[in-house]
């Protein structure tokens, strides 16, 4: 009896050690590209060209960052990106919370059918509507403006509507009923009662939207022609044309572009995870 207990304990210990080893190995695989990017960004062109490549830069050439920043209008592009990301994040949070309230709280004719359509739109590949969307935006003179990159955020997106709706449904209905008894209309209930309670979901949506906007290449590539209007993504893509294979510069800029996202991730980790938990328990 006691022997088998010790045996199973031993077994559990070896199992744990094994899992730790696998996890550490995996972490190295995952983190090494990130380190490689940082290391390359600090090397001299000579060191990058040498074989075999070094894992630790001989000298930390921080000037790569400054030189990169000065070769192209990166300050301008950063401000552009911030503006677009901020506006579409605000739009996304407000619109999706607004729409989700309609689907989660109000009972109206055709609600289930329409929500079915919302879910079904997730199955439509975005590229199918890309060309006609471009033609429409071109016809109304929105090409080479930020409008095609921002306005759609104010019209909701299926995934976020679904995510916020899930969250809203966990709020006790009595609260809504009580507010109605007190004569509040739906707009007031939405703003004063529901929104403060779904803050975690709103933050999740905000992070995902910001991240999506920040990393979007397709939209700017399609709609922005003027270099002064460029975002970081398309700017970075153009930048490659000028520096071609000077990897120290390319990696310095890549690190700079990714840094805000990495910081955002570490700061708001919990919300990234929350977003997945909310949708995870669902049956499709």
């Amino acid at each position, binding site marked *: 009896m006691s022997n088998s207990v010790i045996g199973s304990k031993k077994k559990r210990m070896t*199992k744990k050690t094994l899992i730790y080893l696998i996890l550490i190995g*995996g972490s190295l695989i*995952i*983190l090494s*590209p990130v380190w*490689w*990017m940082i290391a*390359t960004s600090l090397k001299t062109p000579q060191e*990058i*060209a040498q*074989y075999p*490549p070094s894992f630790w830069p001989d000298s930390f050439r921080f000037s790569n960052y400054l030189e990169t920043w000065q070769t192209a209008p990166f300050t301008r592009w950063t401000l552009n990106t911030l503006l677009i990301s901020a506006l579409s994040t605000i739009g996304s949070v407000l619109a999706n919370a*607004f*729409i989700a309230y*309609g*689907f989660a709280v*109000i*009972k*109206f004719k055709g*609600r289930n059918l*329409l929500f079915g359509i*919302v879910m079904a*739109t997730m*199955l439509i590949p*975005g*590229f*199918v*509507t*890309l*060309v*006609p*969307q*471009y033609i*429409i935006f*071109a016809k109304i003179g929105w090409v080479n403006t930020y409008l095609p990159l921002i306005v*759609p955020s*104010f*019209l909701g997106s299926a995934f976020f509507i679904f995510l916020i709706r899930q969250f809203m449904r966990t709020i006790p*209905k009595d609260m*809504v009923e009580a507010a109605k008894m007190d004569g509040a*209309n739906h707009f007031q209930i939405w703003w004063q009662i529901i929104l403060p309670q779904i803050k975690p979901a709103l933050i999740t949506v905000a992070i995902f939207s910001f991240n999506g906007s920040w990393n979007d*290449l397709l939209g700017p590539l*399609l709609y922005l022609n003027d270099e002064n209007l460029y975002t970081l*993504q398309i700017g*970075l*893509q153009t930048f490659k044309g000028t520096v071609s294979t000077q*990897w120290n510069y*390319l*990696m310095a800029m*890549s690190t700079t*572009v*990714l840094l805000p*996202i*990495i910081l955002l991730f*570490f700061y708001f980790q919990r919300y990234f995870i929350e977003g*997945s938990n909310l949708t*995870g328990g*669902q*049956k*499709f």
Partner: protein
Amino acid sequence: MSGIKEHNVAISTTQRKSVHKSKSSDWTVRKPKMSKLSLKENIWGYIFIAPWIIGFLGLTLGPLLFSLVTSFTDYNVTSQMNFTGFDNYKRMFTVDPLFWTSLYNTVYFVVFSVPLTTAGAVIVAMLLNQKMKGIKVFRTIYYLPAVLSGVAVYFLWMQLLSPSTGLVNTVLAWFGIDGPAWLFEPEWTKPALVMMKMWSVGGGMLLYLAVMQGVPKAMYEAAELDGAGSIRKFFHITLPMITPIIFFDMVTSTIGAFQIFQEAYVMTDSGEGGPSNSLLFYNLHMWNNAFEIFNMGYASAMAWVLFIIVMILTFLHFKFSKKWVYYESGDHK
């Protein structure tokens, strides 16, 4: 929500005989007034979902129909639309060899990346679903690549995959393997992209982890009493419980993988398609037609073919899901 209506009905029927005139109580609302209430609710409902309706009509349904019409024309933005019947479709299937190349490349990518990333995500989630010290740190690390995307990451991978001085081949050399030239060798370009996708399996991992943590402990304890080991517990408890998520993941990631574009666009010098067009994916070909040579009619036809392919695949996913997806509430399998 429905509570209030039922309440109304109940009260109004019991009080039907006595005409109640008290204004103080809302509970006396009679039928005509009730429908007014639900009319009001209907209006409120549509006010709230109005942004979505506008977006759906203007950015999804409208464009969808518009591109259907365009696909039967020779539209190129500047000229008039001339109706050309099925010409675009005929050209796609019979004349344009790059159409088949791009479809092949895309299917290749989907076939390898979807099962591999799904299986990878499940395995990683299994490993991370442990009660151990520091497990949260590991979860953070594994999830990190999922938030990193865009041009910077593609540049990073171009550097990692650099034939002589890249990290990947450097590590392979430690094991005596002479790594391929990856993005410069037609047979290795797509595996390289699959590998890049594998790096971010952590994104899917979170979904599985969330569900695994929701599996009642009692189920595992019962299985342990019956002498089930880790492997049997996985196949008989964990796996069935996560099949709905595997299904969800497969459907969405198939659709996603079919739309691979940015990676190929950036990694092949603005959409040239890579060596021997080995990275000319469907959407890249569509993009080149639409925005490089402004053949909008042809691109729209391609868009619709893509739409139909994806719809068929999704339909098949749903059809076969009954065979393997396990739903707790329903009858088994």
